[in-house]
């Protein structure tokens, strides 16, 4: 019998936001080491936001992540609103949701086309595809450009947002802008999405299954992205938990190999993100999004993490349809020049939204003057580390007989599927490299 050694370290997995390493050592099919490590430098947001006025906190918090800045901004603003007991008008809720849909769509387009798709074309990035698959790249750019303009129009700038504040918006979109967006989404955007679905039908995702617990915001009447006053923390395994009790769900803990602060709820790990939302809230998807799911062969519950990208595509369709409905409402009612009203008081609030990559919590305590005393922020990527590690442990034995390069690519693809956003991560442990 020949000895076969599989031995590699992927240092700083590419096409993910932030830094992560994969370490694998195996001999004769026996796995000695299989680890997902995080060397990202901690940033201490929870410490450094102390003493700042809530408005500055809301403006600085999006700097946690360049890709999901709107999600962090919204969670941060919602935490302040809940602490000060600010009630949003219907118009503010609608425009916030419309902005959040833009966040979901831009991030998912970036992830599916720019970060995931190159693996299926056998290239290192989207750049060489510009020459070989010009139509695909141009379509991706169109989808991304419109979604960026859509967000810029509502918050001044997607990275980093400006005009969304506690209590609503300091600048409202005009009727002309809303009409432009409706026309764009109903017209060419929808066509491009349909072609995208056709493209994804042809991609073959690795055949892998690991059932775990799935956690996502849940609301009775919508496929929710912003918790607002009625959202709760839904689970595939249990009854919903109130947002204020999020610590009972996240249960952060340190692990012996100390790669990060991990989380678990009722099982060995839980997953958050597009697939978790799809599994928890499938019945509340827009009918057209359900059709996309059907066309792409994904059914809830789905236990293959590689299908997170497919669930993202389903969510793009949902977000676009949802936005068209919101636009119809806003256009029929007209836009009122409402001024956000906030009266600060001492208190605590937990903001909770579905960032593109999963459930996100900003928990703030303020003093009488609206200055921040304490903050706790739990980001989705950290919640998924434990799930990635458990996927690795099940996946590696299943592919160990394949050539090393293939194993390496499959494991990198798994990490990318989770769409990790590691620079967001607020609770990280230092790790040693095995070079």
């Amino acid at each position, binding site marked *: 019998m020949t000895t076969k050694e599989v031995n590699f370290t992927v240092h700083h997995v590419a096409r993910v936001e932030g830094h992560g390493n994969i370490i694998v050592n195996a001999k004769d099919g026996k796995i000695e080491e299989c680890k997902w490590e995080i060397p990202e430098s901690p940033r*201490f947001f929870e*410490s*450094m936001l102390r003493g*700042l006025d809530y408005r*500055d906190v809301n403006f*600085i918090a999006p700097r946690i992540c*360049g890709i999901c800045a709107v999600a962090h901004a919204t969670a941060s603003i919602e935490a302040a609103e809940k602490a000060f007991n600010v009630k949003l008008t219907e118009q503010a809720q609608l425009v916030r949701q419309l902005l959040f849909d833009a966040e979901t769509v831009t991030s998912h387009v970036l992830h599916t086309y720019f970060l995931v798709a190159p693996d299926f074309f056998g290239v290192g990035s989207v750049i060489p595809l*510009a020459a070989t698959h010009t139509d695909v790249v141009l379509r991706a750019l169109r989808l991304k450009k419109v979604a960026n303009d859509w967000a810029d129009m509502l918050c001044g700038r997607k*990275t980093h947002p400006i005009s969304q504040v506690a209590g609503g918006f300091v600048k409202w979109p005009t009727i002309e802008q809303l009409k432009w967006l409706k026309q764009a989404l109903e017209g060419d955007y929808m066509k491009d999405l349909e072609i995208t679905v056709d493209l994804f039908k042809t991609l073959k995702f690795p055949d892998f299954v690991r059932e775990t617990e799935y956690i996502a915001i849940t609301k009775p009447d919508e496929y929710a992205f912003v918790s607002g006053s009625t959202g709760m923390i839904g689970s595939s395994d249990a009854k919903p938990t109130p947002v204020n009790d999020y610590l009972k769900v996240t249960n952060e803990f340190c692990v012996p190999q100390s790669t990060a602060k991990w989380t678990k709820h009722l099982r060995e790990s839980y997953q958050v993100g597009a697939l978790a939302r799809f599994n928890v809230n499938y019945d509340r998807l827009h009918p057209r999004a359900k059709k996309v799911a059907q066309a792409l062969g994904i059914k809830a519950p789905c236990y293959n993490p590689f299908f997170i990208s497919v669930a993202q595509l389903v969510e793009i369709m949902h977000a676009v349809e949802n936005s068209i409905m919101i636009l119809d409402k806003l256009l029929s009612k007209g836009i009122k020049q409402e001024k956000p009203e906030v009266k600060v008081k001492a208190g605590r609030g937990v903001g909770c939204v579905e960032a593109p990559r999963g459930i996100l919590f900003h928990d703030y305590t303020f003093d009488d003057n609206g200055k921040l005393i304490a903050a706790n922020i739990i980001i989705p990527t950290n919640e998924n580390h434990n799930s990635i590690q458990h996927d690795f442990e099940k996946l590696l034995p299943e592919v160990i007989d394949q050539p090393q390069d293939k194993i390496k690519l499959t494991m990198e693809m798994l990490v990318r599927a989770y769409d990790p956003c590691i620079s967001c991560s607020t609770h990280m442990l230092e790790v040693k490299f095995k070079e």
Partner: protein
Amino acid sequence: MKPRVAFFDFTGCEGCQLEVLNFYMEVVDLIGAVDIVEFREASSDHSDEYDIAFIEGSQSTQKDVERLLKIRERAKILVALGACSCTGGVNALKNRFPMEENLKLVYGDAAKYYNTIPIKPTDAYVKVDAYIPGCPPIRGEVVRLVKCLLTGKKFEPYKDPVCAECKLNENICAFERGEYCLGPVTRGGCNSVCVNAGRKCWGCRGPVDEPNVNAEKELLARYGMTVDDMLLQLKLFNGALEVSK
């Protein structure tokens, strides 16, 4: 040979790289004019050979500093991209507290496993040849810089304060709305984007070369605001720079 361009991310949100990615693909001429040899957020292709290095983010561990020194040795031209690299950006907010306190507060008993150093601008460690300020940087400025580098022209930073552009945009002065605006002392070039969107200037592009501190103080006095509050405002994006009354 085309100039080889590399992007390196240190501690930050990677929003600068995202901004570059957002518009880079739209500017087809640039794609042809340079070779991107390192851009980890968007590409798994990788190289240690490059002419122009863009530094994004802050150096927050000794290991980061060592990595930066190595990049400086290899690069002909080193560009600080974005507020974190140019001025320390929001990362320097942690400098307001002792590092032990930051560690203890966020990591509790596990604090001993971490290390972190106070934030300095990138040019505190290495020579920086050009600065693209802002959080995030303005897209057009990155294009202007690359054009200058390609044609051998000197890249001149924007000279006037945000206030000048803001007036041209006919915005109502943020001071009139009771806001602590840093527009009078902050480097322009952003087209006063934050005031246009209904807010104020937070100073993310760093101080203008010769800030009119007296004008700022006069405004504070006129609108009944304190220098201490303004100094805290200055620390939001410029905490790593010397700030004096």
